[in-house]
């Protein structure tokens, strides 16, 4: 049955007629292979290993970040322990260090930024995805993205020379006149201070929040919208019940992502917050954040404990931003996971 001697047993198939048999020897003689038949196993293995090393480098870098922060912050940890985070004095001359003023400043400026930016960012996202005419959509999305491309130092420059004078001359006196009873808007309007930091941070995180909000709102299935519209709802009611309600978790994720960015933002804040390690109720007063104290004092820090305290602030900032980012990504994922994911191989 088989046309070969090396003894294949019972192969299924029809009996071949003589002209249907072609000897392999003849075939081999005629088709010389054009390319050497060498195995690629070694090269494939080497390539795989090289790519694995690149991926592993990311892991290594993060491990290195953690290691460097922990080992360089150890001195401060030994000196102050947990108390480091609740001590109010920052006194390099007497080697007394506490991070509370910076933690306070970071939290207050970031919250202020969220209060200002969240309604605006959601408004922008709603307008772009649900209300804007199609032709305007791309242009608006691009323009808000552009806001994210501006470097922090340019925001700071603009804030020093435009925003701060504006606050000092017009907004702060106005707020002081009507809102000083709250205690939050009292005292001399310097312009520079917590309020300026909050406003510039708000401008900086709006594109982040609105980009995520747009993404999750687009991920809401069309049927949800149609279902509400079919009940006779107006467009706003459709957005509120059909879109925002379903995208809620993802929008919260975007807000938290914006918070993560605000917590770690350095340059613009450093340029306008006033850099004074004090805890003051009034938002007009100068403050200090964790990121900006590192930026200002790290290269001038004399003394090991001083430097180590700054690194420990960096470590705390690092850990907080990781927690915040992981939480945000999880929330965004809960909304967008339903949308078709590309698959491979």
């Amino acid at each position, binding site marked *: 049955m088989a046309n070969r001697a090396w003894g294949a047993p019972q*192969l299924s198939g029809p009996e071949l007629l003589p002209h249907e048999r072609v000897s392999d020897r003849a075939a081999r003689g005629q088709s010389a292979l054009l390319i050497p038949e060498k195995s690629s196993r070694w090269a494939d293995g080497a390539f795989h290993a090289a790519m694995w090393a690149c991926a592993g480098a990311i892991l290594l870098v993060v491990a290195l970040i953690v290691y460097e922060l922990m080992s360089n912050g150890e001195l401060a940890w030994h000196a102050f322990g947990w108390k480091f985070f609740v001590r109010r004095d920052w006194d390099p001359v007497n080697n007394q260090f506490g991070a509370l003023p910076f933690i306070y400043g970071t939290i207050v400026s970031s919250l202020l930024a969220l209060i200002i930016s969240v309604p605006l960012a959601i408004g922008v996202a709603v307008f772009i995805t649900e209300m804007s005419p199609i032709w305007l959509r791309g242009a608006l999305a691009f323009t808000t993205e552009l806001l994210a491309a501006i470097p922090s130092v340019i925001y700071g420059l603009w804030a020093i020379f435009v925003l701060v004078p504006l606050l000092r001359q017009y907004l702060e006196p106005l707020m002081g006149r009507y809102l000083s009873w709250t205690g939050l808007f009292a005292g001399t309007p310097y312009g520079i201070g917590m309020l300026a930091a909050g406003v510039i941070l708000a401008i900086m995180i709006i594109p982040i929040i609105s980009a995520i909000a747009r993404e999750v709102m687009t991920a809401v299935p069309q049927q949800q919208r149609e279902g509400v519209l079919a009940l006779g709802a107006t467009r706003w009611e459709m957005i509120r019940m059909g879109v925002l309600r379903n995208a809620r978790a993802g929008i919260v994720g975007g807000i938290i992502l914006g918070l993560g960015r605000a917590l770690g933002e350095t340059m613009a804040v450093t340029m306008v917050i006033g850099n004074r390690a004090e805890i003051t109720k009034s938002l007009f007063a100068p403050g200090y954040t964790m990121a900006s104290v590192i930026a200002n004092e790290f290269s001038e820090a004399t003394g090991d404990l001083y430097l180590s305290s700054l690194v420990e602030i960096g470590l705390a900032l690092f850990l907080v931003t990781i927690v915040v980012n992981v939480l945000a990504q999880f929330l965004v994922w809960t909304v967008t996971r339903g949308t078709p994911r590309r698959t491979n191989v």
Partner: protein
Amino acid sequence: MGVAIEVEHLNAWFGSTQALKDISMHIAANHATAIIGPSGCGKSTYVRCLNRMHETVPGARAEGRVRIGDLNIYNGTSATQVRRRVGMVFQKPNPFPTYSIYDNVAAGLKLNGFRDRRRLDEIVERSLRQAALWDEVRDDLRKKSGSSLSGGQQQRLCIARALAVQPQVLLMDEPASALDPISTGKIEELIFQLKENYTIVIVTHNMQQASRVAEFTGFFLLGELIEFDRTEKIFTNPADKRTEDYITGRFG
């Protein structure tokens, strides 16, 4: 020149699901053999086992003995070595999108380290002529990308690409299923000419196509080879009841 293929006790799995059950089959050299059967019967998996393409799917594996000419492909040979001898044409035309027509045809040689430019030119022209595409593309060889051609032209480009490495066997996995009738006709005509020099295994869901192009036909059902014989025998006087049911359109 084509070589014969001997398949013995071939089994294949996707994860824990067995897709092919103990296939043994002798495919004659320099002829066309058609593989037919209802969808999901394992016919695609079967040809993908003949050039070790099956194992590129995560979790998929195959066992058994497959000889292509004198090469035992599941025994110590590397997959790339096998695939250089066994050309493959896929269901959907899949030219390399960013490559020119010329580079598409030359890809198999160039990417395997073949550097002789003059011979490359010859081989590209000969392959495109064999695939009956030369006259349509000769003026845009380097100007147009492979994906700018029409569907039928793309499939012939893919055939030319497979021929350029001068394989001994050509596997075709439903090569005309995504094409219009005129392009399908051209591809069938091409198969007729190609089997002078190559062993061809063609998967098809179209029984007329099988009877037009192939001397031998194998019928697969649920991962088993039910019947394998001369094409006219399968279509006029099948030995197995299930084959008869299939070719008379009673299922599938």
